[in-house]
């Protein structure tokens, strides 16, 4: 029913649906309607004008009632068009699934045959088929279906190739299912939406093609009428009695228009990419709807995030991805932001430069202070001037962030030119590639991203972040996709760069080992809030929040041998339904009633640390260490 609602949201599609439903109902009701016999000639009454007595739409050149012929003809044309569409879809999908599933030589042979079929102009091919089979409506149906098989075959094959390599197909094989069973049971259900989309957009076309063949006298044979043959018969009287052509012509127009509008609507409603909002272009900067007072910035910080709140508004639901985060970095400092997926660490980072996609993202509160100005709600031009020049990002997957069609060096130059630093950009780009220790920087300048290994690409990504000498780098899991030996080199590189250039780094990760090696301070996030913050060594050694302590215990560390791991039972709470008090309380073995009664503030703890817990761990030890 969700589908119908989506469809109805598109008003043109809804109009198409209504018109089409009326036409189909009318066609179905033809035997019940008090119509004159469609094929009885009465030459005395030929070419009567519309609205004549007894003939609402007039008569044709043989004196037959046009209304009756129109409705009978519509019935026939619709039946043939739909039948052709179904046949073409079934056969085309079968061919496409077989070709896509088996791949290799089978695929090659089948698809080249399909290509040959497509190389003929379709009307020529249809004519040839009808010429071979002889004229007749059934043969026209066969011809139209055959002509459209390649379209379905190619579409479905493309989708099937993607599905046949999915892991669930391998899993089905290991479950003992044969090829035929897998094609019918695993692949087909996943391509049915595509078949329906392809059908809904081609039915109209097929009705036109059938009409075309009938118009040429190759489809329905006299005296039986379909819309095309009615047009064909009326051609001779086009000037003297235009209504004989206009009546079937208008009907074809209505049908094809309604089907195409409906088809587009069906496609939009079924296509998962369109449904998930791929067509809605995100705004250039995140939407800001701040209510309540804006907090003051603290003194002496380079980047100061205060009480930041970012939410996602999806229909009636509100996902509180970031629920009041305070963070700050000084020049030359590395701050680790650690948390599991969904904890809000990436959204926090993207909010800084207004990079959270809107819709659905909305910044609803707080302040991001950079060198004394508040970036939240700042004009787009101001943000754009800062992005990449003052605050740069390094993302997890460099293959997705580098443009695949431009050379790496040109992308570096572009990054500089955007900020008006185009002079000597080529030399500077090569120097940057050298700085991030890419061997043969001069020749690598002309490489495309796909020609580099994952580690090299991430180095190029770092070079791009450094291109405009930013003061702050926000690195969002930059080494998660890399092998350990490469990761170690990238981390060492970042560490050197921060020391030599005085960069402030916010390093987002889920890996305590990485944080322990690279970061001066660490903030632990859970369910959109910071639960613990402090100098890395102290937080790791004497974790105060039960979540931090137990999360560290979950992670096996190299060199401890075989052992049972401590797990945290349960899952983090969904951020559209956060509990009133401590979000970790349901999974915590120290939780009391007070934990769930009211929100727990982030409280100072042992020296420079802070913790959002009323029963902190390691209390005595941490205080002792602080003193």
């Amino acid at each position, binding site marked *: 029913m969700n589908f119908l609602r989506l469809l109805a949201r598109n008003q043109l599609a809804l109009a198409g649906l209504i018109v089409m439903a009326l036409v189909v109902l009318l066609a179905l009701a033809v035997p019940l309607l008090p119509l004159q016999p469609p094929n009885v000639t009465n030459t005395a009454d030929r070419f009567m004008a519309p609205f004549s007595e007894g003939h609402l739409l007039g008569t044709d050149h043989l004196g037959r009632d046009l209304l009756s012929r129109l409705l009978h003809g519509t019935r026939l044309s619709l039946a043939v068009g739909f039948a052709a569409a179904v046949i073409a879809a079934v056969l085309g999908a079968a061919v496409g699934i077989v070709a896509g599933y088996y791949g290799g030589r089978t695929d090659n042979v089948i698809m080249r045959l399909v290509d040959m079929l497509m190389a003929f102009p379709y009307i020529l091919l249809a004519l040839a088929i009808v010429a071979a089979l002889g004229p007749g409506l059934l043969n026209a149906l066969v011809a139209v279906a055959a002509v459209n098989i390649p379209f379905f075959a190619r579409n479905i094959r493309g989708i099937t190739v993607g599905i046949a390599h999915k*892991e*669930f197909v*391998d*899993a*089905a*094989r*290991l*479950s*003992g*299912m*044969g090829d035929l*069973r897998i094609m019918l049971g*695993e692949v087909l*259900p*996943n391509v049915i939406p595509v078949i329906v989309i392809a059908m809904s957009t081609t039915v109209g076309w097929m009705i036109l093609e059938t009409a075309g063949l009938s118009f040429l006298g190759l489809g329905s044979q006299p005296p039986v009428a379909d819309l095309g043959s009615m047009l064909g018969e009326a051609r001779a009287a086009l000037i003297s009695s235009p209504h004989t052509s206009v009546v079937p012509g208008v009907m074809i127009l209505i049908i094809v228009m309604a089907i195409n509008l409906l088809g587009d609507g069906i496609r939009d409603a079924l296509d998962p990419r369109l449904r998930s909002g791929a067509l809605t272009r995100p705004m250039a900067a995140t939407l800001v709807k701040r209510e309540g007072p804006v907090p003051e910035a603290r003194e002496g910080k380079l980047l100061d995030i205060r009480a930041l709140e970012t939410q996602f508004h999806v229909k009636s639901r509100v996902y509180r991805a970031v629920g009041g985060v305070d963070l700050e970095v000084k020049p030359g400092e590395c701050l680790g932001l650690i948390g*599991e997926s969904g904890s809000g660490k990436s959204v926090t980072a993207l909010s800084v430069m207004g990079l959270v996609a809107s819709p659905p993202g909305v910044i609803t509160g707080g302040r991001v202070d950079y060198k004394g100005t508040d970036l939240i709600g700042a004009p787009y031009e101001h943000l754009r001037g800062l992005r990449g020049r003052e605050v740069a990002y390094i993302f997890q997957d460099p293959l997705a962030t580098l443009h695949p069609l431009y050379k790496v060096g040109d992308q570096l130059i572009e990054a500089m030119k955007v900020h008006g630093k185009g002079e000597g950009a080529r030399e500077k780009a090569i120097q940057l590639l050298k700085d991030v220790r890419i*061997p043969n920087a001069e020749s690598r300048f002309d490489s495309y991203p796909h020609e580099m*290994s*994952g*580690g090299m690409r991430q180095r190029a990504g770092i070079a791009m972040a450094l291109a405009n000498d930013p003061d702050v780098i926000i690195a969002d899991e930059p080494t998660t996709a890399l*092998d*350990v*030996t*490469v*990761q*170690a*080199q990238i*981390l*060492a*590189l970042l*560490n050197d760069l921060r020391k030599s250039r005085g960069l402030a780094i916010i390093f987002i990760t*889920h*890996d*305590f*080992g*990485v944080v*322990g*090696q*690279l970061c001066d301070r660490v903030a632990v996030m859970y369910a959109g809030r910071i639960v613990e913050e402090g100098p890395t*060594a102290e937080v*790791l050694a004497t974790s105060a929040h039960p979540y931090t302590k*137990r*999360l560290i215990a*979950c*992670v*096996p*560390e*190299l*060199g*401890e*041998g*075989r*052992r*049972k*791991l*401590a*797990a*945290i*039972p349960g*899952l983090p709470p969904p951020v559209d339904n956060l509990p009133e008090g401590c979000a970790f309380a349901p999974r915590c073995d120290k939780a009391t009633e007070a934990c769930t009664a009211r929100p727990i503030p982030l409280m100072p703890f042992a020296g420079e640390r802070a913790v959002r817990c009323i029963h902190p761990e390691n209390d005595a030890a941490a205080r002792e260490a602080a003193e």
Partner: protein
Amino acid sequence: MTHALRLKDLAKTFDVSGGLFGGTRGKVHAVNPITLDVETGETLGIVGESGCGKSTLARMLVGLLPPTEGSIEIEGEPLSRADPAAFGQKIQYVFQDPISSLNPRKTIRQIMEAPLKHLHGMGREQREARIAEIFAAVNLREEFLERYPHEFSGGQAQRIGIARALAAKARILILDEPVSALDVSVQAQVLNLLADLKREFGLTYLFISHDLAVVEAVSDRVAVLYFGSVVEIGPAERIFAAPHHPYTALLAGSAPVVGRELTPPEAKGTELPNPLDPPPGCAFAPRCPRATDKCRAEVPALMDMGDGTKAACFHPLGQGA
């Protein structure tokens, strides 16, 4: 000791086709001949970085990919033809991405029933009983059976994947990066579940991962793969603590460990050799600080290092110490 799994000279070579007419342009040795025994009840860890051939090896072991040469023997029976249905009753596979290994358009019940129906020909009642038994073992509620995969979190989906593998009554499981898509707190839940299941059903595991610490924590023995070959194999508690092969040492030295100084463990490149044109000698030689002319000319075989470890290196570390 009985062997759950014996591999003899198992190798896989892919033809690289080039040009319009599909002529063979070269061969890529994804897995060089590997001889390996896995004892019943053992967990053998397999570590290696991307491109080392670990997934190709795993797919051969479950019959999804025909080996180019060599043989596989499972519980004493040779399986020569790549037929997942024949393999499926003895050896099963748990996939890396738990969500994409479940068909999005099938209910969990339909997914769970497939191996019972097609591998064991069970009737409806038998199937229900078996599913109930397995779901109890992996801590899943039976009401999940009527739901679709997208309704589950990664950890739950991976439990379903494990349940499906167990449903086939296979006693050997190939675990291909089973926890690398999961968050750490969930990762520990799944690893502990795997350990419990192993004890309960007497399973044998091949645990493939790139995460050294995880492999070390769950394995009895560990094999290190580099460029399609086993370069070192030995007891889990010793292999990273006292590595013999320089590559193992590099891996162990690269793993991030709290408190260790951040220095790149290796000055030379991290690039793997070109698979179309591999070097004549040891594949690691171009990156190896200890490489000599001998290394660049001859391929070293696995040699006994005296402490239960075997390494394929002419100049192993830790010898005579």
